């Protein structure tokens, strides 16, 4: 099972932390969490992948869908702290050319 911890920083950045396996069964859950944040007015979002043990292409699909909603609302979506295995999935699909994972959650919107 997967859990999504949702937090908002003082700067108004939404932080979503998927805990567990982010796969075809849980991707839709992530998309709903992200859409909910954007609908609630939080369009700058960091997805903290430090506790994501597994990520498949459906999980990537949910991240991309979230990125689209955030950008359409004038914000952005950043990913932070992926594990080695998750980084491999980014590379496999060339998505690392599009989204650069950040080293920290706090600094995700710095540059």
């Amino acid at each position, binding site marked *: 099972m997967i859990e999504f911890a949702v937090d908002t920083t003082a700067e108004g950045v939404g932080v979503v932390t998927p805990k567990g396996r982010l796969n*075809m*069964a849980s*991707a*839709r859950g992530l*998309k709903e969490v992200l859409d909910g944040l954007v609908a609630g007015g939080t369009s700058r979002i960091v997805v903290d992948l430090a506790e994501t043990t597994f990520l*498949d*292409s*459906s999980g*990537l*699909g949910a991240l*991309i*869908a979230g*990125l*689209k909603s955030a*950008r*359409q609302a004038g914000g*952005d979506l950043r990913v932070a702290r992926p594990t080695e295995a998750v980084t491999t999935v980014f590379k*496999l*699909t*060339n*998505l*690392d*050319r*599009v*989204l*650069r994972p950040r080293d920290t959650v706090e600094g995700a919107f710095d*540059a």
Partner: protein
Amino acid sequence: MEPATAGYGQHVPRRLLVIRLVVLLTALLGVNYVAWRWVFSVNWDAWWIAVPLVLAETFSLVDSLLFGLAMWRLKERGEPPPAAPGLTVDVLIATYNEPIDLVMRTARAALAIDYPHRTWVLDDGNRPEMREAAEAEGIGWITRSAEWAGMPRHAKAGNLNNALLVTEGEFLLILDADQVPLPAILDRTLGYFEDPQMALVQTPQWFANVPDDDPLGSQAPLFYGPIQQGKDGWNAAFFCGSNAIIRREALMQLGVSRYADAVEAGVQRALRTARSVLRQARRGLGPDDDAVRRALDSIEYDISRARRELARGEALMDVTYRFQQRVASVRRELVAADLTALQSDLAAIAELERSAGEADDGLAGIDLGALDQLSARDWSPLGAVETVQALVDAVDVDLGSEAQPIMPMATISVTEDMATCMRLHGLGWRTAYHHEVLAHGLAPEDLPTMLTQRLRWAQGTVQVMFRENPLLQRRLTWGQRLMYFATMWSYLSGFAALVYLAAPIIYLTVGVLPVRALSTEFFIRLVPFLVVNQLLFLVVAAGRPTWRGQQYSLALFPVWIKSFTSAFGNVFLGRSLDFAVTPKTRQEVDRPPWHLVRPQLLAMAALVVAAIIGVVRVGTGHAGAAGTAFNIAWIGFDLAIFSVIIKAARYRGFDPAATAPPTARRGAA
């Protein structure tokens, strides 16, 4: 089509050896004949027919060589590996406007599939009565999400892409609304996915409502058999849109990597366009527009910076985010600077609004968001502001013109299956063809519907050839490239057919011979090639009927030609394909629809008239008996080919009483 049976595999090596021997013979004799034709036998004095004929013959030779190449690796898989327990599967039934009863017949059969799964009706028609019928029997109902409103719908590909995001099984069984699955369909196919690189397993499309003589050529025993098995041998088994099981991860990976590629290409293109748009805009500025000129300079600087950043390998989203933020801020400055000039306009508008009873604070109330809107308004006096707006839109990396950023099923063609499969192969996935009838479908039962369907298939294939030519796909092996190319090549037969019709008519009526002489040498080279070519068909088919297929590949020449011209117009000139969904129910017709096959009827009449003239010319001493006899024999063959059109036009639909029940003959699988 005989289902694969246990033990059949033991014969494969010998069968394959025989096939390879005949393939080699066909290739040798074919090249020998056509090379000789080019070098020694073209009648250059009558080049206007001689060259088309030798080109048509070369086309046929290449067609035959590509067929031989596929047969070289014929792969008969036999018994499938057993399905692992515990896999999750979604059965997806795609429908648009088919009758509810027909969809429900398929849906009930899908529900009754043995292997545990979930069943969904993907209702592109968004019909309340379809939903009610499905849900009443515990079948899921899915229609397009709100995101699709006002976006390109992409027909069946879009329907499936939509469903992919709301289902979650590891595997998907894709069914057309009229393909009734057998209970064993998943147990017999899931085993292939033990191979972690296996993306897709295609099973045959076989039609239950077709009489033995198959007047409309609906069954494709050669395609759903040796041809798919040959492609399978090159790891190029085709996805045919229905009766296939797909690994979700493969499709989603395809979707994500296509997204990444599309974003990269889109951003590079947008930045290039942006710069030229900017220069265009600057040309229109007057000497007093200093503020605007400075703003445009500033944006041009940002474009250069963005391109440098991309060249350094910075992530696209970071580059475009910064760029869009910069452009937005420049735009705000620009509009703010221009507000004094606008003030009188605004006052007038505010006055209007006040008089309409909507109090407005005037300029003080305009926030940043309102400024954004302001710059998008048509009445803005600065054309450059709008240009800036267009720039921001152009660098919209979210692919705002599509409903979903991820489109796993290819949308470049009206037949999404072939393009999707080719891209999966490009990513290194494997596919398999499992030769066992595991669904009973419904074929068109009248000529108009059949013609529409064939045109659609041909158009889709040609679209893919124009948009993503398989020969140029560097990530495919050469075998795979040629297997895809072979299918596209075969649709060129429409043009060859024209020449094969014209050549004997021209000889018999005006006496012009496109070859130097109908000499003994000509026949010694031609006849053995024709014989081994037919022998290859015979050996490969192993008892399957092939004559209908041969007839239709020539007799539908107007359809094939139209598929090329319309797909060319669509891909290169942006014209509509006049795309029509294939009707699944019989269209009632009172009399044979002769008007739909007028070109074929005219061709047949011309052949007959030419034969009569030919005989008269021999009688009056204007033509030689041997040449005339040869050409009349050729015409006889053409007429035998075209006779299927008359049969098809007169066909009145399927009468089950006239045919033995299909289960008794074929469904033993």
